[in-house]
């Protein structure tokens, strides 16, 4: 098996988790209510842990040490989708992003449970159990707020309209798509998107939000190829700053 395809897949997954983890950790101490504060911090810690697990597999495949990979690359060397790098914004933005991202994350690891890459399959089985709580959290809050006041619904709807095209960028195809599928490493972005959409729709139907998603929306792509918004580099600088000033900081 040519590792290049698996390496590309692992980098984009790890970078997604690392960046969304660091973004959502910004909610610590500023969440709308204490419980949500704790939830976002806790999920952020999970995500960073997941990225570490993936970077370790990359290291086994010959890439650099996890902390080098995480904290010394520049924006154009990152393969995360652009959606995860945007600032946390208002709570409704972060909640919708968490909802759209985590269902994709969940289904991706679900599909990887039987990956021919044994280490990845083991990690996926473990991680899937953890992300169940993330989607449980997203679903609960979507249901609560998506059926509450007009203002809340309006805010959620606006964030959903903004974030849906961004979320489609999660499924930007890699040049190795066919190979990943034929090698049994991963079932592919298209299959993932189908599973994701089913789950998203199922949750939206439990709310008063608009159930028809814009099928003509054009996906925000480029992230998988190293093209990013101006938001990413400052975040990376901040992350490596913490590491530089406190080399013993636990991540």
């Amino acid at each position: 098996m040519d590792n290049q395809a698996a390496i590309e897949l692992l980098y984009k997954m790890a970078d997604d988790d690392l960046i969304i983890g660091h973004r959502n950790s910004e909610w610590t101490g500023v969440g709308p209510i204490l419980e949500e504060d704790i939830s976002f911090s806790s999920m952020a810690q999970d995500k960073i842990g997941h990225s570490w697990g993936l970077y370790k597999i990359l290291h086994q495949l010959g890439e650099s040490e996890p902390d080098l990979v995480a904290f010394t690359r520049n924006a154009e060397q990152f393969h995360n989708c652009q959606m995860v790098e945007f600032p946390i914004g208002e709570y409704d933005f972060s909640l919708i992003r968490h909802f759209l991202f985590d269902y994709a994350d969940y289904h991706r690891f679900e599909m990887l449970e039987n990956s021919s890459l044994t280490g990845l399959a083991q990690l996926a089985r473990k991680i899937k159990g953890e992300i169940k709580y993330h989607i449980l959290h997203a679903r609960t809050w979507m249901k609560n707020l998506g059926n509450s006041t007009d203002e809340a619904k309006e805010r959620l709807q606006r964030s959903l309209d903004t974030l849906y095209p961004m979320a489609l960028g999660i499924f930007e195809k890699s040049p190795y798509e066919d190979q990943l599928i034929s090698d049994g490493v991963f079932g592919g972005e298209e299959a993932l998107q189908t599973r994701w959409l089913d789950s998203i729709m199922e949750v939206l139907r439990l709310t008063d939000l608009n159930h028809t998603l814009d099928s003509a929306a054009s996906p925000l792509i480029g992230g998988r190829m190293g093209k990013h918004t101006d938001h990413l580099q400052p975040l990376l600088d901040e992350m490596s700053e913490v590491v530089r000033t406190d080399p013993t900081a636990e991540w």
Partner: protein
Amino acid sequence: MVEDQPQLARIRDILDEVKDPEIPTISLIDLGVITEIDLKENGHVYVEMTPTFVGCPAMDYMKKSVEEKLNENGFSDFFVNVTLEKAWTTNNITEKGREGLKKHGLAPPPHLEKIVDIDILENVTCPYCNSDDTELQTPFGPTLCRSMHFCHNCKQAFEQFKPL
């Protein structure tokens, strides 16, 4: 496996002294984080561990504690392997371990068949008064392993070691 069963039992007893860094009433063996202890013919000790959560920040510390414990007791030829091969679930917690959690004021996790649903986090038995009249506050507690609940009977907040 080796014939020297008494020695293997001794190693097991020694390692049973290594407790969870956050919950001193449960050993890593009873938590299910130590998944295998083996003694080879030549005296080599093999210990296998697995993290509760992939991002568990205490994993390195727990591994070090196991290594130190073996050193303290005169073992020098050993290998502590951290692997996800046998992934941890809360079903790995022993009966003694579940008692240990309760002693620490944590509701033990329910036994799981497979899928975690929201329901399993509702009406968790309160570790203080044993009432089921409780409510889930958030599936995310102060550490990754815990969910937070409130008991309507004794009006106290409590945490559960959540099922995984």
